[in-house]
C-alpha cells in the first residue's frame, strides 16, 4: 500500500475557524482527525493565516501556495506540493473537508479500490446527492500541473479540477 497523507481544509464561519467549533466537547477538526487517522499514514492541515491556532493538534499546517485563501483546489494543490517536497515516497494524498465530522471511515479504501479498478487520474467521492470533490484521492504527480493550470476562478471551486486535470 502506498503511503498517503490526508489534507484537511479549514474554512471560516461567523468570523472564526469553522473546524475549531466544538462538537461533543471537542473541535470539529478533532472529529475529522479521529476518522482519518486510522486510514492514512500521516495527516496535514491546509489552512491560511496564523498556523499557531492549530498547534494543539500536532500536525503540519500547510498554507495555500497559490495565494492566500485561493480556494479548495488551491488547498489541494498545496497539500500535493508539500507532500512532494517532504514525503518523496508518497504517491497519493487523500483530501477531506475539516468541517465534516462524520466522514466515511472507509473513505481511503474506497478511493484506493477505485484507483486499482479503473486507474483513473484521480478519485473524488460521490453519493446520490452528487459529487464531493473535496473528498478524494489525488496523485502527488499532479502537483506541478495544478500549480501551472489553476487560475483564481478555478481554484475557488473544488470542481475546478475538471478544467485543469489532464485527460488521458
Amino acid at each position, binding site marked *: 500500500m502506498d503511503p498517503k497523507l490526508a489534507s484537511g481544509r479549514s474554512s471560516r464561519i*461567523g468570523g472564526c475557524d469553522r473546524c475549531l467549533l466544538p*462538537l*461533543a466537547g471537542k473541535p470539529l477538526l478533532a472529529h475529522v482527525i479521529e476518522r482519518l487517522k486510522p486510514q492514512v499514514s500521516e495527516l496535514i492541515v491546509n489552512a491560511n493565516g496564523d498556523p499557531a491556532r492549530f498547534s494543539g493538534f500536532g500536525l503540519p499546517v500547510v498554507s495555500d501556495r497559490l495565494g492566500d485563501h485561493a480556494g479548495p483546489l488551491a488547498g489541494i494543490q498545496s497539500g500535493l506540493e508539500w507532500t512532494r517536497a517532504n514525503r518523496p515516497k508518497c504517491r497519493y494524498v487523500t483530501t477531506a473537508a475539516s*468541517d*465534516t465530522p*462524520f466522514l*466515511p471511515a*472507509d473513505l481511503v479504501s474506497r478511493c484506493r479500490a477505485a484507483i486499482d479498478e479503473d486507474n483513473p487520474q484521480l478519485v473524488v467521492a460521490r453519493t446520490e*446527492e452528487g459529487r464531493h470533490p473535496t*473528498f478524494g484521492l489525488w496523485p502527488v504527480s499532479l502537483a506541478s500541473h495544478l500549480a501551472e493550470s489553476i487560475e483564481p476562478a478555478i481554484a475557488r471551486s473544488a470542481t475546478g479540477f475538471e478544467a485543469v486535470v489532464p485527460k488521458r
Partner: protein
Amino acid sequence: MFQALEAGKIDPFFKINRPDDLDAAEAFLQASLT
C-alpha cells in the same frame, strides 16, 4: 456509534455550514449514544 453513522442515519458528508448544523450534529451524536 460509527457503524450507525455508516448505516445511513446521517449523511457521512454532512457539512457544518451554519450554527444550526452544529446543533443537528450534536443531537445526532447524543441520540447515537443512547
